[in-house]
């Protein structure tokens, strides 16, 4: 088992919280993990990504080789496209439809969705709407994680366990809400 995942978004959108859940779930499942993050200047509203690699055998490179990424999981549609050179032929793009427009020449939504639809394996999901229905915009990232979970090769129980560990000190309610978001994301793409 080996999964190479690129997490994409804009600095401040919290992709590292998705990475933390996947990472912890992977380690708890007894898998090897490498996860390269972006810290520093780009975190100020710039494009950010994280290379997340999980495998049942030791992992050499902290970076995913070009053309071999199993999934791009993005919380922003334009950012989903930025890392396409890394995507394997049969790789998946799972992205939120919610745009983050902090640059003047941000493209038209339709153009972005058109490009995403050109990728054979893609999931476009309105994670913010689902999160809103559940009562909090803050959990849209966990909706995205849910939408991507079937491609992770990790048991849902491990993802839930990781949420328990990571969000536990914020209280049971927060954990329950995050797990609800995970499930909703998982269900959301079946529709």
């Amino acid at each position, binding site marked *: 088992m080996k999964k190479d995942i690129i997490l994409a978004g804009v600095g401040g959108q919290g992709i590292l919280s998705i990475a933390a859940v996947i990472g912890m779930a992977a380690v708890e499942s007894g898998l090897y993990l490498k996860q390269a993050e972006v810290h520093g200047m780009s975190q100020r509203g710039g494009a950010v990504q994280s290379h997340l690699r999980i495998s049942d055998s030791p992992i050499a490179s902290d970076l995913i080789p070009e053309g071999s990424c199993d999934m791009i999981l993005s919380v922003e549609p334009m950012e989903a496209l930025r890392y396409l050179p890394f995507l394997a032929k049969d790789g998946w793009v799972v992205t939120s439809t919610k745009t983050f427009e902090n640059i003047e*020449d*941000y493209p038209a939504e339709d153009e972005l969705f058109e490009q995403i639809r050109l990728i054979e394996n893609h999931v476009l999901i309105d994670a913010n709407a689902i999160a809103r229905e559940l009562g909090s915009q803050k959990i849209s990232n966990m909706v995205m994680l849910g939408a991507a979970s079937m491609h992770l090769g990790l048991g849902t129980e491990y993802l839930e366990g990781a949420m328990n560990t990571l969000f536990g000190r914020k209280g049971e309610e927060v954990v329950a809400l995050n797990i609800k978001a995970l499930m909703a994301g998982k269900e959301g793409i079946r529709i």
Partner: protein
Amino acid sequence: MKEFVLLGDEAIGQGALDAGLSGVYAYPGTPSTEITEFIQKSKEAIERNVHAQWSANEKTAMEAGLGMSYAGKRAMVCMKHVGLNVAADAFINAGMTGVNGGLVVVVADDPSMHSSQNEQDSRFYGKFAMIPVLEPATQQEAYEMTRYGFDLSEKFALPVMLRITTRLAHSRSAVERSELRSENEVKLPADLKQFILLPAPARKKYKLLLSIQDKLEQESITSGLNRTEAGEDHSKGIIACGLSYNYYQEVAANAGLNYPVLKISQYPVPAELLNEFVKGVDQVVVLEEGAPMLEESLTGILENNYQIGGRLNGLLPRDGELDPLNVKKAMGIESEPARLIPDVVKNRPPALCKGCGHIDMYNALGEALDSYGPGRVFSDIGCYTLGALPPYNAINSCVDMGASITMAKGASDAGLRPAVAVIGDSTFTHSGMTGLLDAVVEQTPLTIIISDNSTTGMTGGQQSHATNRLFDICRGIGVEEEHLRQMNPLRKHHEENMVMVADELAYEGVSVIIAQRECIQTASRSLRKEKSAKS
């Protein structure tokens, strides 16, 4: 033993704590910041009272670390690569004095300049100081080599450099801890003159340093950190330094390569090791992150004329990080064309946060400067450097920590009026104060804006030494009271702020305007903390 998932930086922090660290000294700088932050947050470190407060700059950090070593305890000093330029005086001379308690200097280089002004390779500094340099490839190695670094430092009574790069600093993996070692007790150096570098003793110390170089090279063999892996295909021999070893492993596993490999993680690298390795291979390929340092030296080291491939002959790019793709190309393996990034994808550079005080400061400055024309604003290193980008286009320089004030002074001396410096609060106490003194002594016509967000913002909001001290510092240095002004950088105060700047631009002497408003990131963070404390 239990495994912990740690960033490379965090693995170094944990490694140092477990090796009996008594103090870490550092100034924040990407990608090194998380080493010290890890120690600051570590329960064990707090219980043990390990020193972990930030220093004013890398030089004060290096000197304090050396002082702790003088007193017999283990100290670690952490910085980004350009920080070593600031600390260089102390760093190089620490090679001359040697150490008492173990001293490890961690330098995090930033090839590809993700968050830096250049991509200088710190291994050159290690060579320059003639001290051992360790270069781990993995988080586990980072953990272990930190401990070994302290051992090595105490064995040879020399500081040891641990050199990492961005990808290791900011990548997580599982790390297994080893047993905890107790800290050293306070113990004076056996020779109380060890740290006196007057010319006569310094000459002796230098001869001593020269005389142990052979031993350091031998140690680079016996430690096992430079190891040869046999391979069946002798058409190439791969010398892989530090992190580049990972990329070679990745490429070799995917493409079924089986070349002999010499993994380098400790310097100085003895010539005999290199000569032994290249025997029987047709071509040598050198993979190193940063500058072609080892590659350059090979022509003088290898006994026969080998074909050497690397960054110098174009086999690998001369600049930027290595990655699995450029290492694969260097191995002569073709890749299928990758997918393209669609044209619809636009650049998204970092930007000042919405509501940031730096924006209001730049708006006031911009309008006040309108009548003078462009090209007069010298700036510095920090979030406010983003004022260089549209829509602000507000600054004309960003060179090194503190250079805003001194460059503006030089330009003013040349006759450029008005000359303006924009510097952050933390950068000002890092390296701006001495430049201000130069200007005050000469009453140089100069307008300095200290954009004070009361934190070290760009690196994530570390404590700033300047907080609540700026007025006293400026007064103490000799800035005239009537030209030491305070601005509240909010949109609603724009008019009065603009007038204040315009007034000071017209003054033929030193003006300092302190534009004080807390960073909105740290402000909202403390608000959240308060809220959660209440609930």
